[in-house]
Every structure is written in C-alpha cells, then in structure tokens.
C-alpha cells in the first residue's frame, strides 16, 4: 500500500478511498506501526467493514483485531460506533478503551 504521507484523492482504486489509519497503545504495538495511508476498496463502507478488511491483510492485523469488540474507533478525531460510515473520512483511528485521568 502507499507509503505517501499525504492524503490525496485516490487514483489507484476507482470508487475506493484513501484514508490515513492510526493505531494507539497495544493496537499500535500489535500492528507494528503507528499510522499508514491505505487505499480502501469501495466495498468497505463502515468502521466494522474496515476492521474486517484490515483483519485479512496479515497476521499482525488479525492479532490486533483478534477481539474486535474491545477495540474502539474514532473518525476524524471523534469517537464513533462500529456502524459509522467512513465515507469522506480523512483519518480513522483504532485504540483500546481509554485509561486516562
């Protein structure tokens, strides 16, 4: 997948979209990177779809999303639920339940 840091209109996957995906805490450790830019096919329309698509990308993703029900997500820096649409999203983040304070 593209290693370009710039999120530009996707020309390599007609109908799909290019999204910056970020990972935090143990999700980041399991995936093995903090962020990447991915060309996501048009069949992927929700956060839950994106998780399912990521899981089949490789063993590190399968490991990170082994229990997808405990991984949280944000679209463009706002918490979202699994059914949230990713259309128009610039940035999607995946992370464990938060433990600040």
């Amino acid at each position, binding site marked *: 997948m593209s290693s370009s840091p710039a999120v530009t209109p996707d020309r390599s996957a007609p109908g799909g979209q290019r999204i910056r995906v970020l990972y935090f805490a143990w999700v980041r450790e399991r995936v093995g990177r903090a962020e990447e830019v991915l060309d996501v096919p048009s069949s992927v329309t929700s956060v839950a779809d994106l998780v399912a698509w990521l899981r089949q990308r490789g063993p590190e993703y399968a490991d990170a999303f082994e229990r*997808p029900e405990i991984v949280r997500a944000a679209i463009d820096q706002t918490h979202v639920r699994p059914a949230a649409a990713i259309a128009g999203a610039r940035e999607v983040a995946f992370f464990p339940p938060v433990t600040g304070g």
Partner: protein
Amino acid sequence: MTVRVQAEDFDSAAEVRRLNGTSTDAGAIVTFTGTVRGESHGQRLILMELEHYPGMTEAELARIEQEARSRWPLTASLIIHRYGRLLPGDNIVLVVTVSRHRQAAFAAAEFLMDYLKTRAPFWKKETLSDGTGGWVDARETDDTALERWAMPDVTAATAP
C-alpha cells in the same frame, strides 16, 4: 476555559491563581489533582508511560469542558493532562472548576473527571518492580460512573 495537554509538570496553586486572576466573582474553587500511585497489582510501580492521540485529546477535552459548562454555572474552568514518562507521586491531571457556589464547582469537577476517564484518548502503560506490567485495562467502574450523569457511552466497541 482552558485545556492543556503537556509533558511538563504543573503547579496547581499557580494555575489556580492564574485562572482566577483578579476576579472576585467566585465563591467556590474546586481543585482536583490526580497523581501516579506507587503500587499496582501488589507490586511497586517503577514507571508509568502515558500515550495519547495528539489533536483528538485536545478536541475531546474541549468537548468535555463544554458539556460541563452547559450543565453548571461555571465562571472559569481548567483541565491539564500530562503525557509521557511519569514516576510514582508525579502529577497526571489537574481539574479546576470555579463557580459562585460550591455545589456547582464540586459537581462539575467530578463530572469532568468521570467523563475524561472514559472519553479522553489516553492510555497508561505500567512497568512494575517484578518485571511485569503492560497496558492498564479500562475499569468498568469508570463506565458506571458515567451512568449517574446520564451520559451515553459514545466509545462503544468497533464490532456490533
């Protein structure tokens, strides 16, 4: 109304003086400071590393503060949250609420902390004296603390 996310330590007394300034409107100032406990799972804590999501952290804290201000008549408020490598006894978080009366200041400070613990994108990683440690699990008690404020859990899991 101020939100700060920083690696550096803070001085709560200095922050309160700065926040309140020369105003005489306030009858009540509540200050809460969260610090790193030196014990976890029966072991001595050696190090706590706090990771966060730059950008979203500030946005989320600002949303939380706005929610508090819509519920209580605050004349001023402040949230400071640290990230990075922290040691036992170090400051983690400061919440200050200023109001004319104590009920609003107490309630708003408690609301801010309950809400922050379940919404602000921070993650704690511990190193313990026996060599164990790892990422701290979210506590269910934090989620149930939200319920009494009648707030929905917007951080629901990513799978249906």
